[in-house]
């Protein structure tokens, strides 16, 4: 069995993305990058499948050269190989172009049975690349997976739990399939020093458009139908009133405020 895990490097949430009020541009204090939190669960699940069923697990990422760091973490956690998709031609990709580029890499890897993505990335929060990738590959699309119950390689089937709004759906799908995973699926391992050192030395191949059989106008900026035309800070939150009375009076005042504004109905 061959499993591909898709990984994105994102700015750390602790980095506090802010606007520069004078220049009106994005400022990131301490530009620390981390693996997208949902992708850690995807990597862990890939490694667990390998341990349970025997599989070759390959992590792929598209991004600038420093995204290699994210792939090294994936290697330290136990994936077998990693590939970075990085080239100027990929710059400015929106979700359509990203899913296209990743799909070509997965086709090049060949005979992939299962693709695992995080539910969404914490920078863009779109949750669009997973479904887009499933369509490009014509794989069964299974989003919001909270548990893999069974993989039956003989019948080419996978049974999973999906976390939906009102409960959990148990579904069976044909392989090859693409799943997007939520946090509940596992507890990612913390790699030990030995595997971190080994991963640091690993050779991570970098693929560009010349390595993929794609159409040039579907990559990067050219292949991205959406354009960001403005970035701004949301209006500051109003209010900010601390009610400082004894508990009984504070609660009474709070309920008065909320019900007079029609926020709660009593």
């Amino acid at each position: 069995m061959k499993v591909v895990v898709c990984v994105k490097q994102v700015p750390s949430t602790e980095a506090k993305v802010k606007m520069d009020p004078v220049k009106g541009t994005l400022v990131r204090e301490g530009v620390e990058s981390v693996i997208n939190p949902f992708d850690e669960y995807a990597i862990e699940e890939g490694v667990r499948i390998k341990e349970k069923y025997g599989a070759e697990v390959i992590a792929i990422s598209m991004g600038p050269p420093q995204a290699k760091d994210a792939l090294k973490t994936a290697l330290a956690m136990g994936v077998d190989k990693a590939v970075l998709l990085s080239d100027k031609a990929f710059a400015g990709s929106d979700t359509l172009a990203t899913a296209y580029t990743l799909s070509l890499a997965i086709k090049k890897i060949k005979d992939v049975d299962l693709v695992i993505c995080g539910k969404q990335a914490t920078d863009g929060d779109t949750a669009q690349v997973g479904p887009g990738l499933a369509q490009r590959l014509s794989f069964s699309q299974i989003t919001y997976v909270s548990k893999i119950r069974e993989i039956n390689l003989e019948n080419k089937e996978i049974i999973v739990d999906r976390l939906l709004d009102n409960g959990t759906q148990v579904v069976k799908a044909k392989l090859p399939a693409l799943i997007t995973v939520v946090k509940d699926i596992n507890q990612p391992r913390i790699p030990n020093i030995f595997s971190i050192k080994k991963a640091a030395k690993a050779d991570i191949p970098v693929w560009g458009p010349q390595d993929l059989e794609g159409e040039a106008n579907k990559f990067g900026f050219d292949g991205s139908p959406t354009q960001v035309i403005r970035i701004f800070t949301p209006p500051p939150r109003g209010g900010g009133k601390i009610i400082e009375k004894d508990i009984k009076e504070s609660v009474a005042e709070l309920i008065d405020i909320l019900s007079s504004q029609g926020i709660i109905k009593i």
Partner: protein
Amino acid sequence: MALIVKKEECTGCGICIDVCPYKGIKLNSAGIAEVTENCILCGQCVDSCPAGALYIEEKKQEREKQSYSGVMVFIEHEFNKVHSVSFELLGKGKKIADELKVPLYAMIIGDQINNIIEEVKNYDADIIYAVSAPWLSDYQTKPYIIEAENIIKLAKPEIVLIGATTLGRDFAGALATRLETGLTADCTELSIDKEKGLLLQTRPAFGGNIMATITCPYKRPQMATVRPKVMPMPQKIFRANCKVIQMLPVSSHKDLDLELIDFLPDTIGKVNIAEADIIVSGGRGMKGPENFSMLFELAELLGGAVGASRAAVDSGWIPYAHQVGQTGRTVRPKLYIACGISGAIQHLAGMQTSEVIVAINKDPEAPIFKIANYGIVGDLFKVVPEMIRQIKERKSKNS
């Protein structure tokens, strides 16, 4: 496509280097800006350059033919009931359609959908495109996007709106790829650029720390998912002359690639947090699983749902389905009551766009107070029971 430096105009001031979050630009040995391989063409430096020495080479894409016209809303339904976000979108869609002077369409996919069609007629659509077949009774990605593509190719709407629900985001991501067009996720604001007639799609990013306005200038349709409860519920306006076009299905039962084995409903709490107008949420300060019962009691009194911080979920006090925050759900209720939640940035990312935030915490320095509209500094084990008591008292007086 590239970021270009007009060398003769660059003053070497270095502002572009400061604003670039990606180390995508540097000063070369001649003291002039030079683009590095890290550049992702985000364009922030272009706006920052005081000398106007930077620009991104224009797209040469051909604008798709102007044959696309009209605003289409995807009607989401389950158990023969239309999701409220679809009505909200019909209301917003009507306003946009009027502004563009184009028709409003609805798209209904399902089985035995006559009463859904009748219901949608109350929301001022000009044409309803409907397709029904037994294998379309429950949502599944593949057959639904095959039918949606068929309808969109016939109706050619310039805009397609879909609710940013669990189902809607599964559907929209797949459909936009099939149509090879642009999709903007989770919008909180939609408007029309009067000059160009483009849909301006505004959405939070980076956990709500910034807002971005996105357009899809060349490809059609322009697709957006919109968060539930952001757009107002419109008045019912029955359209007697609303035309219904019944389509023949183009998918088949063979396109059902998921087989439903079981459904395990969420047993605790009557309202799920994705839909709730009011969320009462508990964090580390709850101290243990047994104490969540008072939050459920308060939530039920207010007709709301119970949420939790990651700390509470990871401690096993409440299931993951209730987690609000970066690795849980993003919510935007009318009222969010945070009990014993300090307000780590990862938690704020999932709830800071709530309309009104109330914080109850014994630590006056807790960051949650910085974003709360109203705060009570105190022991939640005294404050919450007091809230329950007073609300019950007022309810019995009012009834």
